[in-house]
């Protein structure tokens, strides 16, 4: 394993610690899906995969990131703060009155947050608009959109998927956090999404399926998705909800519930190996 991968793994766990601390302090929030997305967020924000500059959040050539699954705002805020967009001390204000760190991301409130999201199924349409503007303006920035898997039950995603193919939005990269769980339970027992890669292929997209906890695979997938093409790319990351904290893994109870004090201590211990 390369030093870079080791480094990114450490950052991913750092983001996980932030998520646990933030949601526990808030007494609410969505740790499960935040933890399943943490490796991706480490790669995007710290792996040189996404072109961005915390000193210049409005840089017009930056790559854009749209968090369609807005409820995992904690992991986005953690990535932004750890990158230097705002002080990490502010993370503990999550969900509190007067905080910039609203329960779901708000455009214009926090540097680095591109769009307001939180109502599921809308981010991919927004990302299409951003990607289309880039194409109209002759820019080469990429637009990343992180989607939940349960969220794909919202039909608007598929309107956006058809649109992106029609308009050849090749600089648009949708990333699906396929953790197989939604509030009700298993996505396949709610309203099934399988066969998911075939669905995206049928909509005309390039599709890459990876292990969403394998840092090197994430890096490689984003490189492949950035190669010249006539169409957008979907990266389907197979993940574990609650990844990194034993009692949260594959446990739907922690979709929208924070750890209590005792759970918080155990979670931090597991994530840091006792080094904090």
């Amino acid at each position, binding site marked *: 394993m390369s030093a870079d991968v080791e480094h990114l793994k450490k950052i991913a766990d750092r983001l996980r610690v932030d998520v646990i601390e933030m949601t526990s302090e808030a007494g609410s929030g969505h740790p499960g899906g935040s933890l399943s997305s943490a490796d991706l967020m480490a790669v995007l924000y710290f792996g040189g995969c996404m072109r961005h500059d915390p000193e210049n959040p409005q840089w017009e050539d930056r790559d854009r990131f749209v968090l369609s699954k807005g409820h995992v705002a904690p992991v986005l805020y953690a990535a932004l703060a750890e990158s230097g967009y705002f002080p990490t001390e502010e993370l503990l204000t999550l969900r509190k009155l007067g905080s910039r760190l609203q329960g779901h991301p708000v*455009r*214009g409130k926090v540097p680095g947050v591109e769009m307001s999201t939180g109502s599921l199924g809308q981010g*991919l*349409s*927004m990302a*299409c608009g*951003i990607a289309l503007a880039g194409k109209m*303006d002759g820019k080469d920035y990429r637009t990343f959109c992180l989607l939940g898997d349960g969220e794909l039950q919202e039909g*608007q995603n598929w*309107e956006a998927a058809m649109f992106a193919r029609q308009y050849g939005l090749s600089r648009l990269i949708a990333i699906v956090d396929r953790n197989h769980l939604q509030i009700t339970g298993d996505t396949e027992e709610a309203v099934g999404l399988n066969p998911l890669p075939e669905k995206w292929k049928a909509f005309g997209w390039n599709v890459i399926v990876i292990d969403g906890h394998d840092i090197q695979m994430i890096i490689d997938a984003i490189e492949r998705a950035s190669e010249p093409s006539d169409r957008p790319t979907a990266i389907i990351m197979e993940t574990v909800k609650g990844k990194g904290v034993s009692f949260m893994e594959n446990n739907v109870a922690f979709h929208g519930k924070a750890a209590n004090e005792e759970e918080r201590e155990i979670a931090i211990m597991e994530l840091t190996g006792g080094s904090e």
Partner: protein
Amino acid sequence: MKIAQRNYYGKALAALAADPRVVVMDADLAGSTKTSEFQKVCPERFVEVGIAEQNMIGIASGLAASGKVVYASTFGIFATGRCWEQIRLAVAYPRLNVRICATHCGITVGEDGASHQALEDMAIMRTLPNMTVICPADAYEAYAATIALADFEGPAYMRMGRADFPVVTSEDDVFEVGKARVMREGSDVTLFGCGQMTAMCLEAAETLASEGISAEVVNVSTIKPIDAEAIVASVSKTGCCVTAEEHSIIGGLGSAVAEVLADSRPAPLERVGTRDTFGESGKPDELMIKYGLTAGAIADAARKVISRK
């Protein structure tokens, strides 16, 4: 003279094609909404989304967040009701420069029937924070408002009809968002109108004049933010008023004026509009009569409200 507002909306968009920020979107109805006029002269900044209004709003949001000034059009019922929550989250909340310009609003959609007759659109758009709501009186005002919106900051909803409406403004009038305009001065009653009902208010004022009643007519083409100052000034003079809109009496112009009066200057008010009901198929003129949206109904309401003073 009668002209369809959408024809002048299309002309205004074509004139705006010179502005590189402007992007026009439609959901499979460009020929009807007349966004096709923009498409003809500027195909590179025209975006057809297909029959997918919710997606159109999301894309509009992304374009506006990237510096574009977006005009998104379809029929009123789909432009507002179909994607109200998308408008709320993706446009109103982040206060983006998206102009939702709907045609085929009101009962004069006619034969298509209730499924296509938006009678609630101003009400549901008016409740959204940050949203401006405009209902121009005629084709010229629709043109002027479309041009004015290019340099307006924030989201807006503009409501237009399908049918030819009487022309009551002048082609060289400049549109100012948020300003109501006195079209005829009077002292016994104020008739507040929007959309084609402004023309009917003027017609009603003629009828009333022949009876010795002096009616003031005010064109309230911005429903939100409502021009409270102009409303209070007119009612302070006349002591009572009628509102007239091709829309439900719940939540639109009538409600907006009632709120202003209740807050600042209580006075008798009668509302002309559809009365908590859906429409139906029929010829536009037949429907206007059946649903009480006529100059005669406005004059009746005026006599009634004067008797309540």
